[in-house]
């Protein structure tokens, strides 16, 4: 069993990962350590030995052209790749020093600790309240009805949706606008008090105003949660994230402070991508 310290004290394994070393780990608490992560879909290798450190209570953005493996990598953190027929994950991902691919670890617990918001808003076709209350209910997080209500209200407040829906908690979640639905999905994820929230292109189906609303929300949420976001929009990555990882053709090309990646990348491919020469 590998433990976190072996990785923290050594320079990162992959050549390209210049930034994910021990020096920057000191600036914040490292929440997730991924080393040598490869993903295969059948015989096809979608991700090549990726290594990255995710810092706690910050926003990390994964950027890159379509099909570069960033979503695939994101889905490794809550083992959503397990649900895809023929998908296979190799390598090590440690959450607070513990491997999430440990056979002893219950994936149900993992997914409660690592919440996810998807590309297309996908509220359950149930009431707004039921959408938010579902997670706490199945995990038994509330002792009473009032407790459950409290959790739902707090989650909706944190997701910035409370004022818009407080009068219609029993109306179907699918009746909300796209942006509201996505915030409902964020509230649903928050309701089980996750430590990490994964966001897979959460704004790609939304208009600019709804997008701005979600970006603001991310900025608030990073006070309490570790957020990893996959995005197609480089501007979005620049606006919301503290660290950025650039993927290309299944490889992690470069990872570092967002500021550095966008102003002074060390790789030519990164520079070409952020200046719009491909992708």
């Amino acid at each position, binding site marked *: 069993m590998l433990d976190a310290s072996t990785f923290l004290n050594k320079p990162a394994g992959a050549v390209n990962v210049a930034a994910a070393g021990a020096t920057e780990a000191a600036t914040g608490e490292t929440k997730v350590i991924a080393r040598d992560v490869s993903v295969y879909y059948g015989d096809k290798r979608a991700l090549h030995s990726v290594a990255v450190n995710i810092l706690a209570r910050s926003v990390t953005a994964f950027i890159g052209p379509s099909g570069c493996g960033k979503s695939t990598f994101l889905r490794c953190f809550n083992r959503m790749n397990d649900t895809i*027929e023929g998908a296979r994950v190799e390598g090590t991902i440690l959450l607070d020093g513990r491997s999430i691919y440990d056979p002893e670890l219950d994936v149900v617990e993992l997914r409660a600790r690592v919440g996810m918001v998807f590309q297309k808003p996908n509220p359950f076709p149930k009431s707004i309240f039921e959408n938010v209350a579902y997670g706490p209910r199945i995990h038994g997080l509330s002792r009473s009805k009032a407790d459950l209500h409290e959790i739902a209200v707090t989650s909706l407040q944190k997701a910035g949706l409370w004022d818009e829906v407080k009068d219609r908690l029993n109306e179907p979640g*699918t009746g909300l606008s796209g942006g509201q639905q996505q915030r409902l999905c964020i509230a649903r994820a928050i309701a089980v008090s996750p430590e990490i929230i994964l966001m897979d292109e959460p704004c790609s189906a939304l208009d600019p105003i709804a997008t701005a609303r979600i970006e603001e929300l991310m900025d608030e949420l990073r006070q309490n949660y570790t957020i990893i976001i996959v995005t197609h929009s480089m501007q979005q990555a620049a606006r919301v994230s503290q660290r950025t990882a650039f993927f290309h053709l299944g490889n992690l090309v470069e990872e570092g402070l967002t500021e550095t990646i966008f102003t002074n990348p060390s790789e030519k491919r990164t520079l070409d991508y952020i200046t719009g020469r491909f992708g």
Partner: protein
Amino acid sequence: MADAALPSSIDWSNDRTVARRRRRHAAERRLRYYGLAAIMTAVGLLALLLTSLIYNGYQAFVQTMITLDVTISEKYVARDNPREGNYRLVIRDSLRSLFPEVTGPADERALAQILSSNAPYIVQGRVLDDPSMIGRTVPITIPASDPFDQLNKGAVRRASPESERRVTDKQIGWFDRLDAEGRVAKPFNWGLFFNADSRLPEMAGLAGAITGSFYALLVCFLISFPVGVAAAVYLEEFAPKNRWTDIIEVNINNLAAVPSVVFGLLGLAVFLQFFGLPRSAPIVGGMVLSLVTLPTIIITTRAALKAVPPSIREAALGIGASRHEMVTHHVLPLALPGILTGTIIGLAHALGETAPLLLIGMNAFITQPAGGIFEASTALPTQVYIWADSPERGFVSRTSAAILVLLMFLITMNAIAIYLRQRLERTW
């Protein structure tokens, strides 16, 4: 590049291009007419079927009844033992009082033939229900026998020579006198729904067939719904995709294509001969029919499960629901309208299935509705089969009427399926 190969300008108005466009439009019109013609043919055939059924069958929904003033004389029926009374003589006496001029055993027998030969039992039934009738004269309505029912409905023509019909001129005269006295009526034939089968067309009804079909479908539903849904959920949500599940899938599709008569043979060999279950019983019918509906239910349930968007599954799994919770809390409720629709359509299919029921003996002659799933019974389609095979004139229209009743049940079930689908269907 290949720019040189492209024409620089196209003349859209010369004869060749215009003719070409006209041909394309004509082809489109032709296709539309073919489709229209196909639909007209289908609707026409359906209309033809219904018209011929209604034309042949509507007469069976009314029944000629004759009202007699019957004197329940203590001479024939003892007050302390009404069951053993001689009701044949009770009928004879009441006919004698109406037709005093008819004498002699041959004529008296001919006169009695106007009434259903079940008449003594009908009177007996009334007396047993109300013993205070004994010693009094009461009006009792008795079905006319089949030849006179047909005569009254116009199916037996008076103009035809006497030797070619089952009613003599003399009998027609008596019948007309009864009619003139207002004793003949043609009310709605409730007996068609509330009587069991009989050798006498005027007494035969579908009660036995309807209860038999009901019990068989009940058994069929109780077996095929849970088994079918569970199998579909396993195959769709839990089974690994490998060679074994492929084989199972192919075989389920094969099962759907197996002729139902084969399931009947299986039922005969396994359920009746090996397990020794009772013959002609709805439980065996239901078990055999569940083999017929099972593939339908599995296939439609799988389609309904497939139609639930993957985003809902991801949403459930993403907040830490187990697969079991994902299926029971989210996927199944969303697939339920589709599952119910498939089940009802499967059951409707089973309701009309005849061949397997013939093989397990549900085409027996049974004069009492089944009291449970273990008692011998017929079913609606087998009743149609039995009646279609009967020589009496009255069974011709009754066969059509039975088919109409069967179709009515089928249409009702399909309408429920459509209603459920539209009512419960969700959009997301």
